[in-house]
């Protein structure tokens, strides 16, 4: 695997090559696809390594690649203020067990963004302190950003909760 001139990918391949499944730098965005079970390790390493210092988890989101398998990809965008660099970490998540480790112990910003991913994609984050829906309401049925959720689908009316 190549590091595409990115210091983040180079260090990642040096220290934990077994966790990295694929790398690319399409359009200049350094990207590593990592083993789903090692996501927390990879994020922790990127945050704590003195050469990298990715101190900010800018964004967490997911992509539904139906009908491809594994179906989902969870995408993390990291930014390093001291080094002024970005890197993208992705993990492939299968439809049958849509789960992976939460990044909340590492980055507080992951809290709401992982809630949003759970809400809209139905991907669970193990170890999340408060995995409730974020944008939708508790009675909502299904996860609307999944590709098999029809856009016109109606939801049952809900009354006020007691």
């Amino acid at each position, binding site marked *: 695997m190549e590091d595409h001139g990115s210091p983040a990918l180079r260090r990642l391949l040096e220290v934990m090559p077994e966790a990295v499944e694929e790398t690319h730098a*399409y*359009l200049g*965005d350094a*990207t590593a696809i990592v083993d789903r079970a090692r996501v927390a390790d990879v994020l922790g390493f990127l945050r704590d390594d003195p050469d990298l210092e990715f*101190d*900010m*988890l*800018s*964004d967490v*989101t997911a*992509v*539904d*690649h139906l009908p491809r398998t594994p179906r989902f990809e969870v*995408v993390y*965008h990291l*930014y390093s*203020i001291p080094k*002024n660099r*970005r890197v*993208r970490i992705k993990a492939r998540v299968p439809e049958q067990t849509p789960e992976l480790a939460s990044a909340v112990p590492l*980055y*507080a*910003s992951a*809290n*709401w*963004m992982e809630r*949003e991913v759970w809400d*809209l994609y139905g991907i669970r984050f193990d170890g999340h302190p408060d995995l409730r*829906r*974020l*944008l*939708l*309401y508790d009675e909502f049925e299904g996860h*609307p*950003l999944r590709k098999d959720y029809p*856009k016109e689908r109606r939801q049952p009316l809900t009354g006020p909760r007691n």
Partner: protein
Amino acid sequence: MALPVIPGFDDDVERDLHTERQILNMGPSHPATHGTVKFLIELDGENIVNLDIQVGYLHRGFEKECEAGTWYQAIPYTDRLNYNSAILANVGYCMAVEKLLGIETPERCQWIRVLASELSRIADHLTRCGAACLELQAMTPFLYGIEARELAWDHLEILCGARVTSNYIRIGGVKHDMPPDFPASCRAFIAKTRELLKDFDDVVTSNRIFVDRLVGTGVISREDCIRYAVTGPILRSTGEPLDLRKQQPYLVYDEIDFDVPVGEVGDNYDRYLVCVEEMHQSLRIVEQCLAKLEKLGPGPVNVMDPRVLWPAKGRVFNRMEELIQQFKSVTEGPRVPEGEGYLAIESANGELGFYLVSDGSAVPLKVRCRPPSLINLAPMPGMLKGALLADLIPTFDFINMIGGECDR
């Protein structure tokens, strides 16, 4: 005769008064918060013990709608993310699509985009500061702020044809060039806005009540900002000079002379000062843009790329090939090469990112908007722990959560 015994009544006056915590529901529609959001506040007397913020009341399925239309059809939705600065979301989205298409826009277009972005940023900051005054019961500065914002929106209207939902930026360019009398009128706007900002400053900045309500309230540390990925004026108010216009310059920001104001302690007052100074800097940028645009002279504002540029109307009406191209452009739009890209710009609230994934078709596979409003709101419970209930209002004002962008 013995007094009647009332069950549950304890007449021991020596005992401590019984206290309990109160749960207060504030919102989703409350006159002192602009934006639809619900606070579930646990109060001990007047102090906030716990705060749960429930967002999502304005969720309209932005991503789902974008994934159902062409790449062009998402642009009007981006207008409706942040009603204060629609242009900034337009610019962010169009630049992200251009990144995927590998398009470089003409120089004149880039300067016009910067000009429109900064007018938007001024309008956004004016709303934030003006509305904060209004919610602290100061009507006069609110009107100064709103007068200046109306002037900014008037100029956006001259430029784009619409005050709020501008829909001005196009993939590979802008809708049309600025009108010839725009620079003169815009210079008058700059002078008038400086006057209004002076009036605003006179009434507010050293006003005793305003200072008392803002100094030392809603404090957040630089480290907490970074842990929560908070960007924009909130992060800069803690002293961290992160501004993507400087750090990772896009468009022509590297050719423009402007400063990034920072605060010291990260309280509401610092945020206010940062926002006011950013408006002055934006006015400087607008001046430079006008001068540069006049120097550049007339030129193309759209990239000459048949994938995204629509043919001229006269040719569409008279020639077959252009008619076909127009038809294909409208019904299908550009086919974006398979791949993914993330592009972030500095919006008025912080890092506004667009992460786009294309499967090679004319319909986006994924349009993710990284909303600064949502991410900046997440640390609010920590900022208010132990604070007075009344501090919630200015803190929420200066976080400047815009429901449309937060809930998408």
